[in-house]
């Protein structure tokens, strides 16, 4: 099993863009929060090993740390790909008196902006997004996003150091959004490490086409790739192929190593724990919204997990990249 | 003794089959009302009756296609239960259905092999089936290519396949439901020879036909059904045509039509050396030339599948003409789309009335405006005008004596005869200049037939030019001024009805061309 590095103690303050605030530090195990009811609406499933699972796991962790269901009550709606249904769920949770209602999908935004004014005492959270709706006079929305390109960059550095063939394969879903951020960061990281390296990127055109993702991985391997990465829930298919062909895989979003412990050698983990906790605290302090959060390496929202099996110098290069990004020495150019 | 019990095919004989007190109710119809019927080995027993008398129903019960509401069936004196065709086949009963039971997309051999155990299960043994078919073809004079697809066969050939299917299974008891409807006189003779042979060999045969002379010619006994009841069973030798007709209808009947003399007028329809081909490029019409004048009925005789349907369809604009020209009232209309042919004054009664002529799910009123719904007064702009449509329907129902609960009734609830009357009403109401009537009385009972015939004659008197296509020679003879005989897509001859004989027509129907001079001067 990979050595899971304990999440580094979250850092305070970072030169953040205006109106963007960092998550507050989490102190120790016992969380000091009042009982709260949280509801979350997600486009895929809580077990997708990717986008939705990442935040759901964080919620469960908070619940556990805070003392269980009596303190943190969690309600969820998954597979809410249909925005109309998602909106109904959001309104319903708010009407049911949930204190924090999370809309975990970009596409939920316009619905959320219509619902939020009707529930001025409820906090809402919207991700991935940067807009808290203050421009429209809304004060009870938090926004959050993951700077996926940061971990992407680190994974890229790692991949370039691992690759012997000089070819790396990337299995993307749809060429947009979070996935594209990650992949662009990945390509930048790989190129920065080895300008001659070839990074082949292919998209399946769908978030859930596991079979095509698997074949994309196969194709990359046939094209000479000896390190693979990819994003969205479809990648479980690609990881299966990587496992079969014994090609190392670099993950993102959720920890995919249980699926192939020897193959998933590094992961950019989205750790929403601190962000969520900060929202809870703000809410309980009477600040219902208005903050835009970012998961970054610097604030510990993005953490890198490295497997023991990785060569030391590769991990060293990756950690150096991490440090560079955190310190601001490395800036990532994306299209 | 034991040998005596076997048929030449090796099957055991059915010494006797008896149906007792058979009752079959369909919703609203008592199709069989306590029917008693029997047949013995070596006998040909005729079943006779008007359309809808219940003949097919009785036979379908025997074959296991329907379950009777009451009554029993005895085989060799033993009561038996027939739940499905599989059962009846097991008992040695075979049936040639009124409507062919053939799979178009399969070959003749495959159709024959269907449902049979193969000699090398699970593999098909088509070679053996083919050989057997060839044998049967030879023994019984039934020419048919085992490798041909059924869809490629003419109707007469398909009928042969049906017979071969039954012979192949060696049915000890064979039911033939109107097998002669699509055969030429010569083919009928051949079939009868086979049937007589089979009877002699010890088969039991049940034969259904509307043609009285066939019954007199072939059968030993005859049972007449009317309205689902048995009117009587007679030895064929002891009855006359007139007796049978009276038993069938319940009164004396006059089968003659009076065709008053008429003076023909201008040429309304003219075909000039029209040729047409099918999807495979094979010609279905060759150099067909004809004229139909005002106040004239021209009959087209011929065995089914000799180009009559295509002739009707090229005129209606439904089948492309590859060579030659068609004129309607002097105007060339070759290959105009159907809509324009209708516009030009053509009316058409297609032979497959349910398939081509009407919409089962549409109401009577809707069916009556099938071509003309876009015209005044049935519509204004794009909107249908229901007041006029209803008024029109009422008028047609009254004028043409269409029996229907209401004008809103879906067409499928009408009987065949009334559907045909509706189609006739619709076509005539359009005040056509030329009418093509294909098989206008097929499957229609005597009353309705009489009515339709009289309508056609009345329209003739009013100047309509009619091309009457029929496989019923009696009908052609009764109505036509001139008769065209078709064979293999060609015109074999055009003769004056009053100056020809059935023999002459029969020869031409079998493919003998009348000499060309007479063709030219036939008018």
């Amino acid at each position, binding site marked *: 099993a990979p050595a899971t590095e304990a999440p580094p103690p979250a850092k305070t303050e970072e030169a953040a863009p205006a109106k963007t605030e960092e998550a507050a530090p989490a102190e120790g195990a016992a969380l000091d929060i009042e009982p709260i009811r949280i509801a979350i609406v997600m486009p895929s499933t809580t077990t997708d090993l990717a986008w939705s699972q990442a935040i759901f796991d964080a919620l469960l962790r908070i619940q556990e740390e805070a003392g269980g269901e009596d303190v943190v009550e969690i309600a969820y709606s998954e597979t809410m790909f249909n925005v109309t249904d998602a909106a109904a769920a959001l309104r319903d949770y708010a009407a049911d008196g949930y204190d924090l209602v999370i809309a975990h999908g970009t596409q939920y935004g316009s619905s959320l902006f219509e619902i939020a004014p009707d529930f001025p005492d409820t906090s809402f959270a919207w991700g991935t997004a940067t807009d808290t709706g203050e421009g429209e006079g809304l004060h009870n929305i938090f926004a959050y996003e993951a700077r996926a390109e940061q971990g992407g960059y680190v994974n890229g550095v790692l991949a370039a150091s691992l690759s012997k063939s000089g070819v790396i394969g990337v299995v993307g879903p749809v060429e947009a959004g979070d996935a594209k951020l990650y992949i662009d960061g990945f390509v930048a990281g790989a190129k920065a490490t080895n300008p001659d390296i070839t990074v082949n990127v292919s998209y399946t055109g769908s978030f859930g086409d596991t079979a095509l993702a698997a074949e994309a991985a*196969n194709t990359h391997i046939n094209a000479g790739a000896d390190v693979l990465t990819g994003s969205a829930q479809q990648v479980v298919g690609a990881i299966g192929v990587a496992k079969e062909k014994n090609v190392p895989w670099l993950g993102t979003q959720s920890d995919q190593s*249980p*699926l192939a412990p020897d193959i998933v050698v590094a992961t950019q983990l989205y750790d929403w724990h601190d962000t969520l906790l900060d929202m809870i605290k703000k809410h309980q302090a009477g600040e219902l919204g208005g903050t835009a959060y970012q998961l970054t390496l610097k604030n510990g929202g993005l953490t890198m997990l490295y497997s023991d099996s990785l060569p030391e110098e590769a991990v060293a290069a990756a950690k150096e990249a991490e440090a560079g990004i955190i310190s601001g020495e490395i800036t990532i150019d994306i299209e | 003794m034991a040998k005596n019990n076997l048929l030449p095919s090796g099957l055991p004989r059915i010494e006797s089959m008896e149906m007792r007190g058979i009752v079959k109710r369909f919703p609203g119809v008592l199709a069989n009302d306590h029917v008693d019927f029997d047949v013995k080995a070596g006998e040909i027993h005729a079943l006779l009756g008007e359309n809808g008398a219940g003949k097919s129903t009785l036979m379908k019960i025997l*074959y296991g296609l329907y379950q009777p509401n009451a009554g029993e069936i005895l085989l060799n004196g033993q009561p038996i239960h027939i739940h499905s*065709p599989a059962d009846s086949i097991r008992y040695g009963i075979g049936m040639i259905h009124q409507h062919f039971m053939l799979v178009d997309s399969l070959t003749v051999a495959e159709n024959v092999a269907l449902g049979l155990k193969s000699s090398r299960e699970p593999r098909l043994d088509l070679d053996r089936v083919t050989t057997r078919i060839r044998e049967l073809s030879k023994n019984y004079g039934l020419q048919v290519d085992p490798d041909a697809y059924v869809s490629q066969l003419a109707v007469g050939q398909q009928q042969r396949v049906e017979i071969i299917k039954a012979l192949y299974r060696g049915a000890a008891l064979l039911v033939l439901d109107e097998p002669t409807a699509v055969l030429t006189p010569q083919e009928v003779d051949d079939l009868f020879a086979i049937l007589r042979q089979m009877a002699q060999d010890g088969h039991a045969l049940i034969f259904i036909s509307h043609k009285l002379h066939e019954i007199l010619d072939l059968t030993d006994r005859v049972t007449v059904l009317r309205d689902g009841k048995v009117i009587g069973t007679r030895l064929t030798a002891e009855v006359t045509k007139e007796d049978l007709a009276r038993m069938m209808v319940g009164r004396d009947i006059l089968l003659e039509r009076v065709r008053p003399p008429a003076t023909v007028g201008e040429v309304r329809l003219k075909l000039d050396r029209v040729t047409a081909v099918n999807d495979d490029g094979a010609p279905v019409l060759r150099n067909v030339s004809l004229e139909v004048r005002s106040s004239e009925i021209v009959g087209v005789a011929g065995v089914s599948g000799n180009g009559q349907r295509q002739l009707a369809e090229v005129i209606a604009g439904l089948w492309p003409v590859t060579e030659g020209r068609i004129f309607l009232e002097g105007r060339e209309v070759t290959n105009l789309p159907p809509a324009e042919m209708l516009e030009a004054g053509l009316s058409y009664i297609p032979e497959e009335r349910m398939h081509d002529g009407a919409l089962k799910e549409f109401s009577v009123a809707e069916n009556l405006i099938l071509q003309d719904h876009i015209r005044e007064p049935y519509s204004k702009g794009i909107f249908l005008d229901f007041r006029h449509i209803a008024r029109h329907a009422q008028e047609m129902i009254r004028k043409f004596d269409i029996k229907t609960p209401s004008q809103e009734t879906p067409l499928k609830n009408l009987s065949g005869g009334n559907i045909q009357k509706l189609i006739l009403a619709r076509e005539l109401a359009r005040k056509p200049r030329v009418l093509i009537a294909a098989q206008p009385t097929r499957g229609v009972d005597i009353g309705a037939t009489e009515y339709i015939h009289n309508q056609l004659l009345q329209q003739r008197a009013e100047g309509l030019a009619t091309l009457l296509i029929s496989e019923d020679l009696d009908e052609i003879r009764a109505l036509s001024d001139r008769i065209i005989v078709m064979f293999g897509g060609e015109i074999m001859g055009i003769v004056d009805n009053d100056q020809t004989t059935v023999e002459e027509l029969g020869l031409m129907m079998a493919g003998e061309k009348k000499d060309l001079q007479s063709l030219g001067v036939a008018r």
Partner: protein
Amino acid sequence: MSGELSVLAIIVGIAHSGLRLATPYLYAAIGEMFAQRSGVLNLGVEGIMLMGAYSGFFVTFKTGNLLLGLLAAATVGALMGLAMAFVSVTLQAQQGISGIGLFMFGLGASSLLFKTTLGTVEGVEGFPELRFCLSSLGLNSNYCLSQIPILGEIFLRHNILVYGAFALVPIAWWVLNKTTWGLSIRAVGQNPQAADSLGVSVARVRYVTVTLGGMLAGIAGASLSISLLNIFQENMTNGQGFIAVALVYFGSWAPLGVLAGAMLFSLVNALQLWVQVLGLNIPSDVAVMLPYLLTIITLAFPFRRALQPAALTKPFERGES
């Protein structure tokens, strides 16, 4: 970009991927072809595939026995086919809509079972690639037939389920055209009245074909979950069942036609993956669109006549005609 890759290697890669991608389509489409040839349109293939994928995976995961897993997938698929047969043959329900119902049920039920029994995406050891090594024949050699250049590389590096899918094509052809059963199936789909009048049980034929179709759809699902991907994830078929139904139409209801359709679709999919991998300057969306576009374009060529079974989607009742 990848200059070192020879054209030949790319072709080998495309062909190899094409065969793998075609595998689930072949199972599902051949099964569906049987059902349709007998006159039943089963639009629920997608749902059956998902249930097959789940049960195959679950049993393999719990027992470690791939054959048991395959058997489970086939059984569950057959049961769902049987349900479809009951609804569409015995209860004469409209086939299009009952298929959609079956699909929704399969999608929901497989996910529900996944959540309650597994809870998270797990992996199994799937059917291994066969490499046809001489050593397995007891020969003292390290050589494997899969090393044969080109042909071996394309054809001899697959697992047993891939070979099974392709073996199914001639078998299906044989059953359909060379056996008494096949004759009954063809007749029942074309003219059930005629078949019935010769003692062929229309209902039985349809029950068997639809159940068989379900079984093959179940195996199609298993070919994803325990042979190609070796995982189960909710909705992992992602519309492949519907494509399989479409391929039956594409293939004009003939095994070889279905094979051609499945290969065309899969090869173009493999090709578009290569197009992207090679970094050719085509937007990814356009590349993904290729197989769909090409399928439509191919169909527009008039060289084929559709041979749609005349009784397709029409329930049969004796005495109706």
